[in-house]
């Protein structure tokens, strides 16, 4: 057994040395050709297997890379989207607060700012909850305004918050007049969430669509000249005593976030501080 193994080693070593000698003496092509008869098919197979395996491996790697890249990009897009939303939200809030501050500084009234912390939009009642209450010396019937115009009045004061009855509440009524014609009337809320201007027929002949309606200041509850809205349409009720004009509110009650509460004397005319009130 051992001798056979040694003999095999000797033979194989001899073959190798013979091959090397042939190659040293320039007969490499013959040896290579002879061997190629056996090795070429094997190499072809190996090469094909190699190519297939590498193709599969490379496809798998590509797939893995694309998947990882896809996941990374998706996460990044998500993060950037959130960041963008946050930035635009902060930007928007900043813009709103700046407008409110400008109004607060411009108004010849004593006011405190408040933030809307709740909304009741069921239809029966339309109200906002603001984070100012007795602790901020807020009183019932305090006028609540925004940079665009009148929002409503405080109807319930609590410790740290108050409930604002907005103009579109069905129970809301506010004295007003049309700026261009000086036609007096009352702004009433409607159950469907809109507001209308109720005026005496004999006074309202000249009212037109687009006319601005502002607070009249009568009664001393609301300062005079705060924008309420613009006339959208007129309901001609023929010989009825009162006619109605549909009003588009100056303030979007559903979207307002910051407000001013008029805490001091409310008998001043503030029309000059609202560019749209004329």
């Amino acid at each position, binding site marked *: 057994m051992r001798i056979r*193994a040694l003999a095999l*080693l000797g033979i*194989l070593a001899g073959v*190798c040395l*013979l091959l090397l000698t042939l190659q040293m003496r320039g007969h490499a092509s013959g040896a290579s050709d002879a061997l190629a008869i056996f*090795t070429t098919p094997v*190499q072809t197979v*190996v090469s094909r297997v190699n190519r297939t*395996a*590498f193709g599969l491996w490379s496809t798998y790697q590509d797939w893995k890379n694309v998947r990882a890249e896809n996941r990374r990009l998706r996460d990044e897009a998500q993060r950037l989207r959130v960041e963008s939303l946050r930035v635009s939200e902060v930007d928007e809030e900043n813009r709103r607060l700046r407008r409110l501050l400008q109004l607060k500084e411009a108004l010849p009234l004593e006011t405190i700012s408040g933030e809307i912390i709740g909304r009741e939009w069921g239809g029966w009642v339309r109200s906002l909850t603001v984070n100012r209450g007795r602790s901020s010396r807020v009183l019932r019937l305090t006028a609540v305004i925004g940079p665009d115009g009148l929002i409503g009045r405080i109807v319930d004061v609590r410790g740290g918050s108050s409930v604002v009855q907005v103009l579109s509440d069905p129970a809301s009524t506010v004295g007003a007049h049309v700026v261009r014609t000086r036609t007096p009337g009352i702004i009433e809320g409607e159950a469907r969430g809109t507001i209308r201007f109720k005026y005496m027929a004999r006074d309202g002949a000249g009212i037109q669509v687009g006319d601005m309606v502002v607070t009249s200041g009568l009664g001393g509850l609301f300062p005079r000249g705060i924008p309420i809205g613009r006339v959208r349409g007129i309901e001609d009720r023929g010989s009825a005593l009162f006619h109605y004009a549909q009003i588009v509110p100056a303030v979007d009650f559903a979207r307002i976030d910051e407000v001013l509460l008029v805490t001091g004397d409310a008998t001043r005319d503030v029309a000059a501080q609202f560019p749209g009130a004329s």
Partner: protein
Amino acid sequence: MRTFLAVAVLSGGVAHATMGPAVRIADVAPDIPLIVVVMLALRRGPEFGCGAGFLAGLLQDAATGGLLGVQALTKSVIGFGVGALAGRLRVSQPLVQVPGLVVLSLVEGVARFALLQLFHFPAPFGELMTYVVLPQAIYNGFLGAALVLALSWAESARERAS
């Protein structure tokens, strides 16, 4: 036996050609046919190891386009030597397998270099050993030990199943 030899050697060649580039670390690829030859020689003895080494080496020589017979000779000698010493070696421990394969790879590298000197191979010995032979020997050691462990685990699992 011949079929097994052919399949084993061919598998080593295919693995070397396919997996070699994929498992390359820092541009060092293992010599998978050498590992296969050593494993075959340990299990089947010097005759088988010698034949496997010759075929695997010849296949590598032919595949790489180098001098025919260099790796065939070194690997057949390695196969024979390992096969002859298999009974005296305790190769079941990784602490033996890793250095064993490293040493065998170094021996194979030195033998190959010595043979190539006959053909005025230009690369300096130190550089070749530092950057080619030694890193590959270390890689061979760890990969071979892992393969030996995997094989023995598979065998014990098969025995348990039967």
